[in-house]
């Protein structure tokens, strides 16, 4: 019975309202942060950073943003790629057009631009619901895809429509080496995860969830649907926009609109669902599942020296990946985060089964 909350009495509401009220959880998260910030930079390989951890972090951040909208506020969106793109291209323009623009400021401005566009495309949500809204947000996706290709002003008149950034630095520290990039992303992700957690456990978060669970009832107890939905769109697209900036600037370095195509939107939605709707942790689980799992599956035959052709491997990976999605959904329809919490609950009862 290592994992217990019995005996941990709270003597103030402040203590009860901590993010992790259970001591073991606090220790665990402390350890995770320690590993992430200290051990990893010392021990991780370049491949791990560049090909696994950095994309994982950034997509987890985007999934986090999307989860606010879908998981917490119940508005399904398939325009996430678009908001990432808006963030990336806006930050790019701020960076190249304004001399001496610091990266962090450009990143935040990118996020803000995404917010504006997000709120704009969020307005239909006041009328349109569910899958109808989801498909309607595709309008944002296709429109931005098109706009960033067509309006050459956005790409600083690059002939091909692809753009790139260079010489990133934060407070004079260059963000060039994989470790620096990793730590930068990690920090941003931690800050936003904390902010998101705070939002979701405060009045704002409760408004979103109320709208999600039953919007008519929410209105009746005095929640303004307009305000709740639009703030969710705003916060979500801000975070997604920042993730877009990181994806473009830090991960890719040079990109074309296809980097934020509809596939990205779908991918992020899947992360959110498989990870667990309405869970901050879920965004990380989901990103790990969708980003990291295929990479691992891809390499399994290599480890065992099984001679499979690239095509066969890749088809098998597809099939196994698909099967795993179904498997985990059957095991727990509410996502990996729920599976995790059921696991903890069992641990709590352990060694008794019920």
């Amino acid at each position, binding site marked *: 019975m290592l994992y217990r909350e019995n005996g941990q009495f709270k003597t103030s509401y402040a203590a009860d309202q901590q993010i992790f009220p259970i001591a073991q959880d606090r220790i665990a998260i402390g350890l995770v942060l320690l590993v992430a910030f200290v051990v990893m930079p010392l021990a991780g390989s370049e491949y791990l950073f560049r090909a696994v951890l950095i994309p994982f972090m950034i997509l987890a951040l985007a999934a986090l943003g999307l989860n606010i909208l879908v998981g917490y506020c119940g508005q399904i969106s398939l325009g996430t790629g678009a908001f990432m793109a808006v963030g990336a291209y806006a930050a790019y323009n701020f960076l190249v057009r304004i001399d001496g623009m610091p990266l962090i400021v450009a990143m935040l401005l990118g996020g803000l631009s995404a917010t504006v566009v997000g709120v704009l495309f969020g307005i239909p949500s006041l009328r349109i619901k569910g899958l109808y809204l989801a498909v309607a947000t595709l309008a944002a996706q296709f429109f931005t895809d098109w706009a960033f290709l067509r309006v050459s002003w956005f790409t600083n008149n690059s002939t091909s429509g692809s753009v790139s950034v260079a010489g990133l630095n934060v407070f004079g520290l260059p963000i060039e080496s994989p470790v620096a990039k990793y730590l930068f992303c990690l920090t941003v992700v931690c800050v936003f995860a904390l902010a998101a957690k705070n939002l979701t456990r405060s009045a704002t978060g409760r408004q979103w969830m109320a709208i*999600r669970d039953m919007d008519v009832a929410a209105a009746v*107890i005095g929640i303004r649907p307009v305000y709740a939905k639009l703030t969710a769109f705003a916060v979500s697209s801000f975070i997604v926009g920042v993730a877009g900036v990181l994806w473009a600037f830090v991960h890719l370095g040079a990109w074309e609109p296809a980097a934020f195509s509809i596939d990205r939107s779908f991918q992020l939605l899947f992360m959110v669902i498989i990870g667990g709707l309405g869970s901050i942790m879920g965004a990380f689980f989901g990103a790990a599942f969708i980003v990291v799992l295929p990479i691992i599956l891809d390499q399994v035959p290599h480890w065992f020296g099984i001679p499979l052709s690239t095509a066969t491997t890749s088809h098998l990976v597809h099939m196994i990946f698909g099967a795993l999605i179904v498997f985990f959904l059957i095991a727990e329809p509410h996502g990996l985060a729920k599976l995790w919490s059921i696991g903890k609950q069992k641990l709590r009862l352990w060694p008794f089964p019920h």
Partner: protein
Amino acid sequence: MMNDMPQAVQAQEQAQGNGRRIGDVVLDLQNISLSFGGVKALTNISFNVREHEIRSIIGPNGAGKSSMLNVINGVYHPQEGRILFRGEERRKMEPHRAAAQGIARTFQNIALFKGMSVLDNIMTGRNLKMKSGLLANALYWGRAQREEIEHRVKVEEVIDFLEIQDIRKTPVGALPYGLQKRVELGRALAAEPSLLLLDEPMAGMNVEEKQDMCRFILDVNDQFGTTIVLIEHDMGVVMDISDRVVVLDYGKKIGDGVPEEVRANEDVIRAYLGTSH
């Protein structure tokens, strides 16, 4: 209006007998008509609610009781009629505005927020009273945190009052029906409403649980002076705890008065109560 007078006086007398004071009309509904497409849910209905009273609405299934509540708090907009709340005429109004004016309610088919814990559900009831903004909440520092704790204290009072301390952190979806109803009442109470609308709060409960619920309703009415509009099918409950009763049938008002009066009303017996009860 005129023929309401004797009832009101009577009710007042009776209420005083119970050690309470019934005040002026807070809510006045005049000639309300509401229809959906071809279905006439309410036809030309007038009645009022006085400060501090427990006003019941009864009637057969489909009579329009729930629709009436929906009209009062702005979910439905009647095609005809006037609604005066605290003397002011109300035009088309959104539900959240009604909430802001101090009208809270519970629902017939439980409308709790299924994905949230009991505590969070009740906390949403205090939404209108929480003022800190998005940024403050994101930082969760200073004012936002203070506010959160202040309101938590209030909510804990409600939780104590309803005796649901031990399910605080449970997700409401997993609770049995009766407790869900209680939580829903808690959510409405957390808003410290001046007018509380209850739509069949005791459906699906056994006697013991109904007794508890009655106690809560009476205490709210008594301690906080909350005016209550109650829909309920259990005649025992209605007759015992209400000050005045309106009876609807097929969208029409067929009776209005103190419980004894209504119980004796021929139309009401025929349409609703059936043979003696």
